[in-house]
């Protein structure tokens, strides 16, 4: 019945309910079952231990509630005298002990299974960087960076947030379903952690060490996760996206990427103009440098120096190349020689030397970068 008063409250309520944030926000209370056999085992273990805890809680809190209600002094209760009972105490020590042994058995079986990374069909090396992931397909000889694509405008509330806010990347990891995929996980700088809840895979990415994990995905789909170890200021902004496709689609994608890698290889020796390098360099800068040195080149001193008007970007070219390629040991400036290809390195250095009023007019070509790295 739409009386005037009800309309008054129901219209705003309706607007609130239809607002994108409300509609998309969920009241999710549980772990996902996931799309792998392991994820479903883990979900079962989780639910089993959960129900055991609930039953114990109901009994224990039930007894407490009983006392609170019926053993009150205000209702005339007189305190009993007992303060020991060896038999009961032994029983309530042994029963929990037995329950724990019962839980430990399936937990052990699942853990043993999770540790068995043998006989994989696809091997992917995952490298954690501040603040993005790199995926190298070891047997296919290509690799790429995977960067967050949510804009600063969305993060700073100047633009609407998309449904995949903070969980969207430019290049997802693509894998085939029904194949055992082994991950070799490491990091370039600090400890990160690669986590996809629906695969129930989480492993720390430790600089200088390689960890292993594996999965076999049963259903095609897009599975999103996040970095799970505090790694600096943009820890919240380096998501993981895994796209699981049929074997046929995977083969097509691999062939495309290999083709792209070959084309990139050819492009290194073409005649690049300043404008072309600047255009590409701006994209590289935005994805790989702007989080620290800021889109306007002003940086965040003292940790992240300014590039705009800086000696590095307007002074000695060789020094500038060296810093970008080899980093600055003892600081947060990483070595980008292994992260970015020669074209991207040439483009970003060219960009830095000419953007924000730096205007040196100088450029670096991919071939020059190649020569430097081969020395």
């Amino acid at each position, binding site marked *: 019945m739409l009386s005037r008063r009800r309309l008054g409250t129901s219209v705003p309520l309706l607007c609130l309910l239809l607002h994108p944030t409300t509609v998309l*926000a*969920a*009241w*999710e*209370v*549980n*772990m*996902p079952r996931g799309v792998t056999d392991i994820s479903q*085992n883990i979900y079962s*273990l*989780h639910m089993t*231990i*959960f129900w055991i*805890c609930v039953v*114990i*809680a109901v009994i*224990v809190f039930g007894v*407490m509630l009983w*006392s609170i209600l019926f*053993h*009150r002094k205000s209702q005339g*209760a007189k*305190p009993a005298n*007992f*303060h*020991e009972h060896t038999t009961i*105490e032994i029983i309530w020590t042994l029963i*929990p002990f037995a329950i724990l042994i019962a*839980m*430990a058995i399936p*937990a052990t079986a*699942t*853990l043993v299974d*999770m*540790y068995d990374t043998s006989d994989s069909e696809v091997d992917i090396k995952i490298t954690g960087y501040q603040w993005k992931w790199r995926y190298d397909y070891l047997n296919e000889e290509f690799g790429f960076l995977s960067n967050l694509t949510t804009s600063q405008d969305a*993060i700073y*509330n100047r633009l609407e*947030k998309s449904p995949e*806010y*903070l*969980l969207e990347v430019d290049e997802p990891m693509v894998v085939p379903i029904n194949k055992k995929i082994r991950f070799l996980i490491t990091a370039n*700088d*600090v*400890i990160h*952690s690669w986590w996809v809840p629906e695969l129930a895979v*989480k492993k*720390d990415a430790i600089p*200088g*060490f390689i*960890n292993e994990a594996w999965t076999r995905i049963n259903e095609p789909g897009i599975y*999103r*996760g*996040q970095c799970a*170890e*505090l*790694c*600096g*200021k943009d*820890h*919240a902004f380096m998501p993981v996206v895994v796209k699981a496709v049929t074997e046929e689609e995977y083969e097509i994608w691999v062939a495309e990427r290999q083709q792209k890698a070959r084309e990139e290889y050819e492009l290194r020796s073409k005649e690049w103009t300043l404008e072309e390098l600047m255009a590409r360099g701006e994209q590289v800068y935005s994805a790989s440098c702007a989080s620290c040195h800021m889109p306007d080149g002003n940086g965040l001193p003292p940790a992240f120096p300014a590039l705009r008007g800086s000696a590095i970007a307007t002074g000695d070219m060789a020094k500038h190349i060296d810093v970008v390629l080899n980093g600055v040991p003892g600081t947060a400036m990483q070595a980008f020689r292994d992260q970015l290809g020669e074209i991207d390195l040439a483009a970003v250095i060219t960009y830095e030397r000419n953007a924000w009023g730096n205007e040196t007019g100088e450029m670096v070509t991919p071939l020059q970068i190649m020569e430097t790295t081969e020395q």
Partner: protein
Amino acid sequence: MSAVVDDSHIHEHHGPAKGLGRWLFTTNHKDIGSMYLWFSFSMFLLGGTMAMVIRAELFQPGLQLVDPNFFNQMTTMHGLIMIFGAVMPAFVGLANWMLPMMIGAPDMALPRMNNWSFWILPFAFMLLLSTLFMEGGAPNFGWTSYAPLSTTYGPPSTIFFILSVHMMGVSSIMGAINVIATVLNMRAPGMTLMKMPMFAWAWLITAFLLIAVMPVLAGAITMLLMDIRFGTSFFNAAGGGDPVMYQHIFWFFGHPEVYIMILPAFGIVSHVIPTFARKKLFGYTSMVYAIGSIAFLSFLVWAHHMFTVGMPLAGELFFMYATMLIAVPTGVKVFNWITTMFRGALTFETPMLFACAFVILFSIGGFSGLMLAIAPADFQYHDSYFVVAHFHYVLVPGAVFSIFAAVYYWLPKWTGHMYDEALGKTHFWLSFIGVNLTFFPMHFVGLAGMPRRIPDYALQFADFNQVASIGAFLFGASQFLFLILLIKCVRAGRRASAQVWEGAEGLEWTVPSPAPYHTFTTPPKVV
């Protein structure tokens, strides 16, 4: 050790010293206890303010209030201040006030060292807080300070943070030595160890844990300092070291540390519940053995904080089994408290409200801990908000509620005045609601996939985060009620008797309220 001189007639003519000097130079356990307690409450409010900043930023998706680097400073400092500035000093303050009276001793064994133990803390925390104003900001790598984030990538203030934690460690170690010396040597004649109050047992064992592990923390942070400043590579793979070794050393300290933060709480609850149930504690002997086994086992479980780090299978399994095992003695204690209440004659003054809430909510925290112990499942829980929910349940409605219970319980003894019961109950109910609204939803968002230590999150986590933030603001605001209550009680209130609570037992209830400046200058005889 029996040179107890009866000089009580001398002290009757000398009250405490006057002015600032009284507090700077006091060797009196009651004064030092009060200083620890006021210090810890101010640190609680400061750390709480940082939590308010965190929850305000997390109220909605998007960055509204602070930048991510400052947010990381807030989470780091919130953890350090609450652990080292609020919870630990509060328990030391309660130990100082109550242990000598409980065992019939005139003071702590080493009164001057007691004074130094306290006075280190304001200086340590001034140093720590000053890092917020240094160039590069305060430590921003989490209270756990994993390398190499804290070494190669840490701000310049990191070395000051390391120095301040060293100072806190020295304070804790000296305090622990004092507790052990007091409890082992100064019990009144007739008070055998197995006749000692539970709070004394809890603190005796906690003190051994402190002496065992604070030096390990000192070692870990010194290695950080060496890597930062002196060119070593303890935690740097390029130099032949291993970042994971830091985690092993840190958590070898860190796990016993969390038991250091809960065993005194167990002791307190073992006093409050029997008092308000008017019934002796059930199973005193098994309570003592349970505390001992928990303490022993706490040294064997540290790597459950590191299940995803890439440990060999055998290690992972060992730590899973050992961690699950700790649930047994802990469960025994909970059953004993409940059985103490069962068929008692219960009343629900404020201390009892906090103690009952402790039993329920600490147990909930314990259940999520048991879930975390299941290593395969932990791969989904680790570094998510599920862990944040777990440890906040055991620390806030766990440790902090036990401290509230203790303060309400012993305030009349300290001040000679009954506190305002209506205000106390209000503080309890608002805190109870606040704490559950804040931390229960964190279980859900953690299970749904929200990582920890993030200033911004994906949209599906928004609703529960909003609820948690509202709960946090409620809980935070309620603590000002407590501040008002404390000030009121110190200044005035209904006169308290020596016994204070009908069902209370123990030597501390045989001295007047307020307790005289010097008590038990002659030891009592205990039957």
